[in-house]
């Protein structure tokens, strides 16, 4: 009777308490099957396509503003990369990059789709656009570029949100230096490499007794380029007369150029890019700098970071000017040829260096996912870190694990005096081997941060 009573007194609350205690004990013991927790063995991450048939990538490029043309070219390259990854078109560099696990059936069997955003070449707009892609569109990776300020801002956001950022055109040492991030990767070269590549050519062409005057765009990229080029040229015996910072988008640089005339300098180094470079170079030539004789030598102008689009903008003024680029469409290796062919047939003109780096970055990310067998960013990161490959247009290339910077050959180019065609604006003076532009991973400081955020 008493036993019956006992059973009869067991309330629903008592049973719940009991089962909760049992579950808790089992969980602590770690022996209880956890079949009631969804995806219990997989850690969740942003951009996970889950069981969807497609995966989305976010292309965040300047579609308006001063770099809109470059942004448009980057977007063309991204679209071409998506085509090739999905098995459409002629495959481009899928046929030349080695090793490569991409099979032309998307990434891990999922078709690649993409969303685009407009950075407006402004850090805040770029971050807002990247955030929208990550939160609303659930992209697995963000990529894009054309300004180091923007790249560093977006890279920081991607680290916070745990989404991989494959940088497009960004040349500041800081991107993979003091501002490097575990989730950020750069294929493009940097200012230090430009300095190391161009200095021996400058020595050959202009000698070791030169006095240089720097005009520098007043933001992260300009500062690091000035620092790198100054160090490299002083290394070959040049003296630095002055370094002057100019506001970005100054338009008229005359008030900065006239002091050069009386400075005793015989070389002007323009640490400017895009529209600023077009304007400052054009105006420097108008002020007769290239016709000048100083210290018994011809006055020279150097543009450390060059591009075909900029040479086009500067027109006549760009002829004979030395600089460096990451890549040029006239390269004859199999990878470059395959890419130029695909791009040329698709769009009717050759790709820019910005297009090249964006295309390669997309393929490298896709390949790393294939190698990892998952989209989980920390696994993909591990595949990219230390990845060595060839056939992407710059010779054997290493994605250095310690700072996520690619190391490869760099081109020294010159504005062509007698172009054979409308795209034939730069000639490659020297293909500088990778060994000459390498540097210790800790040289620019910075911390990569954690794999999982």
């Amino acid at each position, binding site marked *: 009777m008493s036993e019956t009573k006992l059973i009869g007194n067991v309330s629903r609350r008592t049973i719940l308490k009991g089962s909760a205690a049992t579950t808790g004990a089992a969980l602590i013991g770690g022996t209880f099957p956890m079949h009631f927790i969804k995806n219990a063995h997989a850690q969740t991450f942003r951009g996970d396509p889950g069981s969807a048939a497609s995966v989305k990538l976010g292309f965040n490029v300047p579609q308006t503003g001063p770099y809109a043309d470059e942004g448009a070219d980057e977007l063309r390259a991204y679209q071409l990369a998506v085509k090739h990854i999905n098995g459409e078109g002629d495959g481009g560099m899928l046929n030349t990059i080695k090793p490569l696990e991409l099979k032309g059936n998307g990434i891990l069997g999922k078709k690649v789709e993409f969303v685009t955003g407009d950075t407006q070449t402004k850090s805040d707009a770029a971050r807002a656009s990247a955030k929208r892609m990550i939160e609303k569109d659930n992209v697995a990776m963000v990529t894009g570029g054309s300004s180091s300020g923007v790249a560093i801002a977006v890279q920081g956001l991607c680290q916070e949100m745990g989404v991989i950022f494959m940088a497009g055109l960004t040349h500041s040492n800081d991107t993979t230096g003091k501002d490097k991030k575990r989730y950020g990767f750069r294929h493009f070269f940097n200012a230090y490499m430009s300095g190391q590549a161009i200095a021996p050519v400058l020595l050959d062409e202009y000698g070791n007794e030169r006095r240089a005057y720097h005009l520098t765009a007043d933001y992260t990229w300009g500062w690091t380029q000035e620092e790198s080029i100054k160090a490299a040229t002083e290394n070959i015996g040049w003296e630095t007369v002055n370094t002057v910072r100019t506001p970005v988008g100054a338009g008229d640089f005359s008030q900065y150029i006239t002091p050069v005339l009386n400075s005793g300098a015989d070389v002007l180094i323009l640490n400017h890019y895009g529209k600023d470079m*077009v304007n400052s170079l054009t105006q420097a030539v108008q002020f*007769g700098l290239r*016709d000048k004789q100083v210290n018994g030598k011809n006055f020279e102008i150097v543009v450390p970071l060059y591009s075909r689009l900029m040479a086009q903008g500067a027109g006549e003024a760009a002829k004979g000017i030395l600089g460096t680029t990451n890549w040029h469409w006239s390269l004859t290796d199999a990878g470059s040829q395959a890419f130029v062919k695909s791009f040329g047939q698709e769009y009717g*003109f050759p790709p820019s260096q910005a297009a090249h780096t964006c295309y390669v970055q997309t393929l490298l990310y896709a390949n790393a996912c294939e190698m990892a067998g998952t989209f989980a960013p920390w696994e993909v990161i591990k595949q990219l870190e230390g990845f060595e490959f060839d056939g992407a247009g710059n010779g054997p290339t290493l994605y250095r694990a310690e700072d996520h910077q690619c190391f490869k050959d760099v081109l020294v180019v010159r504005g062509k005096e007698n172009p054979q065609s*409308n795209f034939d604006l730069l000639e490659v003076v020297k293909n500088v081997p990778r060994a000459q532009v390498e540097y210790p991973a800790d040289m620019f400081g910075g911390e990569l941060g954690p794999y999982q955020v």
Partner: protein
Amino acid sequence: MDAIFLQILNGLDKGGAYALIALGLTLVFGTLGVVNFAHGAIFMMGAFCAVTLEKLLTLSVKVKDESVTFFDAYKETPYLELWFGDTGTAIIDWSVPLSIILAIPVMLLIGIVMERSLIRYFYKRPHAEQILVTFGLAIVLQELVKATFGANPIPQGAPDIVSGSAAVGAIFGLGEAVVYPWWRLIYLAFSLVTIGLVFSFLHFTTYGMVVRAGMADRETVELLGINIERRFTIVFGIAAVVAGLAGVMYTPVLPPDYHLGMDFLVLSFVVVVVGGMGSLPGAVAAGFLLGILQSFSSMTEVKDIFPGIDQIIIYLVAVVILLTRPRGLLGRRGVMES
């Protein structure tokens, strides 16, 4: 001394551009009472008149470069060179000055169409609405230009004969290193002549006198039976021509792109405000003053003492002048004060 001389020239040159744009702005404001934020875009459209003419003059026969197989690379020879030889080359070389002939009717037309089709509906609306609609118009115009010509700057060369530098140092007894580009000197002279012509038109012609009377007291002039509105429309057109020609002549100095107008617009408004809203001599004086101050503040010697001063000097001066003379340098009582 050499450096100071060069910076004065730079300042005058910059000031010339500011004054020309500000002149048109203040003219429109003084006559129509419209705050025209599309004025910078008109300057840009002028620059693109030069680009358009150059593109027309260099229409070319294209010979395909057979060594390039993946896309159509071609070498271009302009028809003008093929047909007229050296004369053709010379015409192309002079395309920027020749653009003036094209720009005058085109800009006048653009100005009149803009005023008749849009601006006139905003005469009696608040200034805030005028700013919104003209700013919107500016964006539309620059996007149209971007869609047509792309976002990259398009270089325009000055004629060969004036593409080098003048040895101004030798003329003024300064060092030999003191040189200044011929085209910038021409631009300065062009600004002074244009400013002189606009003033002469307003002061020494009956038409100009009526316009000035209309600016001072519109109602009375209308009561006298004069169709002042039509004259103001013409004034809007003239302001567009002045800004347009300033744009044409500026192209060899700064390769134009679609954003050129916006780069100048804000500065020009500061010039107008510093000079005094509605005051033509004020706009010209403030244009040159701010141009020279901006040049001097960029000198290394000055920047060493006040880092970054070159980027804020114009706004700093504007603040000081507005604090001490709230109506600007030569502003009139009652303008924008109702």
